[in-house]
């Protein structure tokens, strides 16, 4: 793989207009990745899902060179209907279109060559891979006291042109004081057997509110990894919702640093899997100062050889008194071939805190099914009703009504 990496790296940046300093930095990240390699079972964070093995068996040899010289045509049918929104469209890893037509131009700024801090990016080998190959490093800044009027939808679209490729996408967001942004990620894949590696970074200043909804619904055989980093200042709020169901493999990692007082983070997720799919959510919420709050709720429904993993960690530093941390993961295993693994972790160094976690997994409650069936529904309907109720609990945590309804129709839940 090493030769391939170096060859593809040179090919990618041969005609690039980046200055030599930036290329050298990218090279540094490349070398770091070459040294560490793809993560495998020997790493604690990958204990339940061995990525190097999965890529080897599912994809085989990866190509890291992504031809982005020619533009792709955007099929208008990909756009979400029934909701006015701004959009950023990625096709096969190339930014095709940025459309912020509902917003005031001077309140939003997009810079293409954002240079993020070198040390803060050395998070893990996959982020290093991303740093090395990501073509553009966008930074979207929301200016002080401005709230986005309409949601911003980022389309991650891939078509059949690519196969056995590694795509690296990267977006940075900075929300200045007293701003708000609703961000929806739609993963829309027509390609097969690719490894898509996404890195998001959010900086939330005082009183900023960010809501991020990640939707992976369409069935596809791609392998996905996404790392999201939050830095939260005083009184800021982040809400993340992950709907993980479409890809063959998807691992979402969220690292959240609550740096300012009264900042809070909410992470909710649904893993609805079938057909040998393997999805994982790993969270790391760091309470670093007083009076911060975090809440996590992850629910899984598994059938037909599917595997789900939830690894959640709440860290409370010794300065973070009055922390309120909560974590709950539940799973329904519909068949014997399925598997649910959880590692809910607490690491606490302050005494005046309220932290708890819970995890439960099992089958559908036969008594409940019997109760519903005795009222005239058949077995299938009863099962559906129970599962819908189980998942609705998470969906109701979504604070944005429009998005909530959108997601409900997407997965066909009626109330």
């Amino acid at each position, binding site marked *: 793989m090493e030769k391939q990496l170096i060859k593809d790296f040179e090919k990618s940046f041969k005609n690039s207009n980046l200055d030599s300093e930036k290329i050298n930095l990218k090279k540094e990240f490349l070398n770091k990745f070459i040294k560490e390699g793809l993560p495998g079972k020997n790493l*604690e964070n990958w204990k339940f899902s061995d990525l190097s093995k999965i890529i080897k068996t599912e994809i085989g040899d990866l190509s890291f060179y992504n031809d982005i010289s020619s533009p792709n045509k955007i099929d208008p049918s990909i756009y979400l209907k029934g909701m006015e929104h701004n959009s950023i469209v990625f096709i096969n890893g190339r930014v095709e279109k940025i459309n912020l037509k509902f917003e005031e131009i001077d309140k939003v700024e997009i810079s293409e060559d954002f240079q993020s801090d070198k040390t803060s990016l050395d998070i893990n080998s996959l982020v290093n891979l991303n740093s090395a190959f990501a073509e553009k490093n966008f930074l979207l800044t929301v200016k002080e006291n401005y709230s986005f009027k309409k949601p911003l939808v980022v389309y991650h679209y891939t078509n059949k042109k690519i196969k056995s490729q590694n795509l690296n996408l990267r977006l940075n967001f900075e929300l200045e004081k007293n701003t708000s942004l609703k961000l929806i990620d739609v993963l829309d894949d027509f390609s097969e057997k690719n490894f898509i590696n996404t890195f998001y970074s959010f900086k939330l200043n005082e009183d900023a509110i960010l809501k991020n909804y990640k939707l992976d619904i369409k069935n596809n055989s791609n392998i996905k990894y996404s790392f999201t980093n939050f830095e939260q200042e005083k009184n800021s709020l982040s809400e993340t919702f992950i709907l993980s169901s479409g890809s063959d493999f998807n691992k979402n990692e969220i690292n959240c640093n609550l740096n300012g007082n009264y900042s809070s983070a909410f992470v909710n997720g649904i893993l609805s899997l079938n057909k040998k799919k393997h999805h994982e959510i790993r969270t790391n919420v760091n309470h670093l100062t007083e009076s911060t709050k975090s809440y996590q709720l992850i629910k899984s429904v598994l059938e037909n050889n599917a595997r789900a993993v939830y690894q959640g960690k709440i860290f409370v530093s*010794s300065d973070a*008194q009055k922390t309120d941390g909560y974590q709950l993961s539940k*799973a329904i*295993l*519909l*068949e*014997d071939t*399925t*598997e*649910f*693994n*959880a*590692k*809910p*972790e*607490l*690491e*606490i*160094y*302050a*005494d*005046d*805190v*309220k*932290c*708890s*976690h*819970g*995890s*439960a*997994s*099992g*089958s559908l409650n036969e008594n409940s099914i019997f109760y519903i069936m005795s009222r005239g529904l058949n077995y299938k309907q009863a099962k559906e009703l129970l599962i819908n109720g189980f998942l609705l609990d998470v969906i109701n945590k979504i604070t944005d009504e429009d998005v909530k309804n959108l997601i409900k129709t997407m997965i066909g839940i009626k109330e």
Partner: protein
Amino acid sequence: MKTESSQNSREKEIEKLKKYKYGFSTDIENIKAPKGLNEEVIRFISNIKKEPKWLLDWRLKAYQRLKVLKEPNWQKPKYPKINYQDLYYYSAPKSFKEKPKSLDELDPKLLETYKKLGIPLQEQKRLNNIAVDAVFDSVSVATTFKDKLTEKGIIFCSISEAIQKHPELVRKYLGSVIPLTDHFFATLNSAVFTDGSFVYVPPGVRCPMELSTYFRINASDTGQFERTLIIADKGSYVSYLEGCTAPMRDENQLHAANVELIALDDAEIKYSTVQNWYPGDKDGKGGIYNFVTKRGLCKGKNSKISWTQVETGSAITWKYPSCILKGDNSIGEFYSIAITNNHQKADTGTKMIHLGKNTKSKIISKGISAGFSDMTYRGLVDISKKADNSRNYTQCDSLLMGNKCGAHTVPYIKNKNSGSNLAHEATTSKISEEQLHYCQQRGLNSEEAVGLIVNGFCKEVLQQLPMEFAVEAQKLVGISLEGSVG
């Protein structure tokens, strides 16, 4: 209002209590194996214990394996590198070269030591009904109530004696739960284990009394590597207690024991530990490294193994008493209180491996950390594909006192069977001001109030202990936290 003198006397009392009660050492001449770890030492140990050849071969095999194994490093408490060549692997009181035939032949100094510890070896003076096997440094000193047990066919003796008298049982079961190749410290133990207890309860027998072992490390620079093997044959029941102390020394001492339990069809084993090894002084100097491997195998149908532990001592405690639930309908239980104060560190928990159908497990863990200490609950619940209709319930609560200590929970939960149900919950909190205020209002001082609340917090676990131990454990809980509030 308190007068000054009463305050002074109270302080003195606290000072006295804070001191480790079992910190004395006994001046007894010892026979030691040469320092260091090599084949010679293993042969020396095997030879002095007159072991059969198969056991020596077994030990040597473990030693060969040890050479390629690395010390694990995933645990939370880190410790300075141990120089395994700088330890004595065998230390025995000199008067023991020929094992005494009866209690009258025991070195009076030893008897005195056990008297100080509160272990009544002389049967006639005993009031309560517990058979004791006392292990001093490396060898088993005396076993009481032997006759009464023999009547029922129960074998309760030191493992060295069992190797001589019941080699077929030892050979069959030794290493069957913790294999030779398991992990570094278990393998080290297999290579150099010196003594420990052996229990065999024949089919259908309900052991009429509590069996108990008392471990004491006396000599300096020694590691204690004891090995305990308990076999409960079909339909039998046994309750086993274990207590430990060590003198106060500035250097750290290693204690790496292996405990294997085997429960056959319909058998039940209840294993209780009150661990009070020397925890080091208040600055974290000295103390025992307690790296113990404890594992139980529910081999037969409807068998049950229950672990109860109160961990208050040791500089570092690192152990996970586990249950392998192989037989259908078998039950595993784990009740634990771990208290860390000053600079103590504990990384403890359990593993429940569900293999058989309708297996059940229950984990109740209570962690209390104070001072500069660190407490970790680390546990695994693994429900395999074939373990239909299995149940697990886990509850781990932590209590923190002060913001210099830490409390961590690291559970691994694996479920591969849709017919099984798993529930896990954990909370971390501190003693609420309201509770303290309420108690103080009713005339308790702050330390008494904390003691009361903590005992309430631990009640679920303390209830599981046999009567005699429960009282001791309750006192220990109070003493361990002395001086941590206010």
